[in-house]
């Protein structure tokens, strides 16, 4: 049995993270959380999470950034909004999980070969480059960066989809792609300006 020190010191908390969380979209009411656990109970994915959404709420507002950004939970959220609709304190839990995902990507704190963040990254890169998603290429790219063996495993299904025309290989693109890029840059600049 391996023993680990679990005690936390005040120095382990990150006050900057607390300030950020309470000003970011979704974090406005996080101090109202009464830790009832309704979000975790409602969450269809909480059965796989290392920290339930409720624990993320508390860890976030107390500033335990390492635990929060290193948690698998933020990548498991499918944005079904069940937690947010039912929260008895009207906390925007789903928005907050989005914010945590973005922060983790910005800080490059995500599991390298974990499909969900890779997918998010490839998705946004493809939108930036083409203005549209081509599902066949997106899937291939994600598998190449996560698990190439699963790509072979799924090839049967892929070929069927290709044959029936459900997943065309032709890359879809919009015209005036430079404008899409400008639009996304402007969003990023505004975010930086507002420091959110």
């Amino acid at each position, binding site marked *: 049995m391996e023993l680990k020190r679990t005690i936390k010191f005040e120095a382990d908390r990150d006050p900057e993270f607390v300030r950020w969380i309470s000003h970011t979209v979704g974090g406005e009411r996080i101090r109202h959380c009464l830790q009832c*656990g*309704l979000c975790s109970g409602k969450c269809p994915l909480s059965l796989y999470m290392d920290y339930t959404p*409720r624990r993320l709420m508390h860890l976030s507002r107390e500033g335990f950034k390492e635990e929060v950004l290193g948690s698998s939970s933020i990548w498991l959220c499918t944005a079904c909004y069940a937690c947010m609709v039912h929260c008895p304190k009207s906390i925007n839990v789903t928005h907050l999980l989005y914010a945590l995902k973005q922060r983790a990507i910005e800080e490059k704190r995500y599991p390298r070969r974990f499909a969900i963040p890779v997918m998010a990254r490839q998705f946004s890169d493809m939108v930036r480059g083409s203005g549209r998603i081509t599902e066949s290429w997106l899937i291939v790219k994600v598998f190449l960066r996560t698990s190439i063996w699963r790509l072979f495993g799924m090839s049967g299904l892929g070929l069927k989809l290709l044959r029936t025309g459900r997943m065309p290989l032709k890359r879809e693109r919009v015209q005036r792609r430079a404008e899409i890029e400008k639009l996304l840059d402007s969003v990023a600049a505004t975010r930086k300006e507002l420091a959110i």
Partner: protein
Amino acid sequence: MPEISQLSGPEAVRVGFYVCHCGTNIAGTVDVKALAGYAASLPRVAVSREYKYMCSDPGQALIEQDIADHKLNRVVVASCSPLLHEATFRRALGRAGLNPFLLQMVNIREHVSWVHLDKKAATEKAQDLVRAAVQRVALHKPLQKRRVDINPSVLVVGGGIAGIHAALTLAEAGKQVYLVEREPTIGGHMAMFDKTFPTLDCAACILTPKMTAVGSHPNIKLWTYSEVVKVDGYVGNYKAQVKHKPRYVIDDLCIGCQECIAACVYKEGKTPDEFNLGLSMRKPIYLPFPQAVPQKVVIDRDTCIEFKSGKCKKTCVEACGDRLAIDFKQKETFDEIEIGAIILATGFKTFAPERNPYCGYGRYPNVYTSLEVERLINASGPTAGEVILRDGKKPASVGIIHCIGSRDANTNRWCSKVCCMYSLKLAHLIKEHTGAEVFNFYIDMRTPGKGYEEFYDRLLDEGVHFVRGRVAEVSDWAVHPSEEGKLVIRAEDTLAGFVRRIPVDMVVLSVGLEPQSDAQDVRRLFNISCASEGWFLERHPKLAPVSTFTEGVYIAGACQGPKDIPDSVAQAGAAAAEALALIDAKSVELEPYTASILEEECSGCKSCISLCPYQAIAFIEEKKKAYINEVLCKGCGTCVAGCPSGSIKQNFFEDEEIFEEIEGVLAYA
């Protein structure tokens, strides 16, 4: 407008000005020395002082001394809200031989120091307010308070435990009490309970002696199946109209033998029994429960065949025989009563759990509300005290879910206060009756109260499970063989840190407390206020918890907010004591802020008559002028503002006084 100089004829106006530090409450934000210096520079101010606590005895003595030494005839005190200390300073003026109404207060605490941060700006604002008061006070006139006699009887509305206790207390003190209850029996929610926490004494055993005492007390006029429909008058002299709904049974002739119920053409009850919350059926002629007070049956005209078709054999009338107590032609009747004080004890309603669809109420037959389970456990309930499911089986496991409808922004934000304790009680009783495994799902366990925490400790010892987490869902969807045929409760066990699924046979929803659905109508009827949630508003949450902003109207029990039995009884006692203090004074002083008609200017247009909310204005036909009854006038000022010819004036709020005050505020230094 008369010039102030005109007033300084034979008797020159000499104002004394006093500013209170209120510790640092005021002095921390307002420069009190500068304020006193500023006031000294204002015309007609003879003395200007600052003092640490003006309301203290030395502070008051200071004013009294100055009135004598400096021949002051007006006083301005800049301190807290007049709600708190106007009476204090008026008494000080009175002791010094000055008419108390020659005082004006400036609220520089609530209106200035508590709401501003910038000391300089706050001081300037205080100066403006002081200038207005000094200008206004010069026009104050001596006024006399009026005294009116008090009617020594009391109306108590609501016959739950609070109303019963208040009525009995007053009746014991020898006062005539009218107790009005809209249901056919008194007893309220408490009569439905089985045991009471934390001592587990039987609710009926402690309540019914009080109920019968009410029914037989010579000083209590008990009117059940009745409602107050109209209230007029003012403190000490209210008039109320009470409507008696027809029971179709003559009160004085019915002896409560219940032979009519047995004889009813319905062999079995077909109507859901209100007292058992629909868990059993009753006949159209019924007694709500065995210990009902009064022991008079009632006929429900919606289900009685005689009312529906007129072709019933009327076996009930036969059974009643020559007592002749049944009267199908009974009509509603009215009584007019005169009372000095009113106690409202109209109680609460429980949260309707259909509003939280995820807890399965109404969808799964074995999901019950806590009140329904009270009836199941109760020996006089639908199952004679057996806790059984709808199919007659005993549950082997029971989940009690706290906070249904409470502590939730989607329904009610407040904590209903009693649910934790009654859930513990139900857990104990269910375990005692069935031996089932009991799970309590709670957010926070709230057991403040004498013996309450000890009761929680006892439950822990009894092996009841406590899962800290708000339940997300109750469903019959089994994902594991052990869940087949059960109700599955899904919740995060927040202390363990993971989600759990717990299969049970029976779910109990600990529903919260809500204001009665007609609380708004009742508060309008009695002219009191409600807080935003709909609970009746007390005059002060700590220091006047049973008084309202309407003099002579008191509140007790859960109509003011969620409350358990001990608190309701304590409040009922307090309300009775307040009512006694009022009526035993025999007479009451009324503020002299009444309005009066300037007859020479009144055109007789009658506009004011319909405006008056207190029916205080009459029209004198001979003179073709309006007339205001001083005793009925509450000084609201509506008629003064509404009079098209400006021929109504109100004491203490005369046009000149108000204009002078406005000019004072606007005359920036």
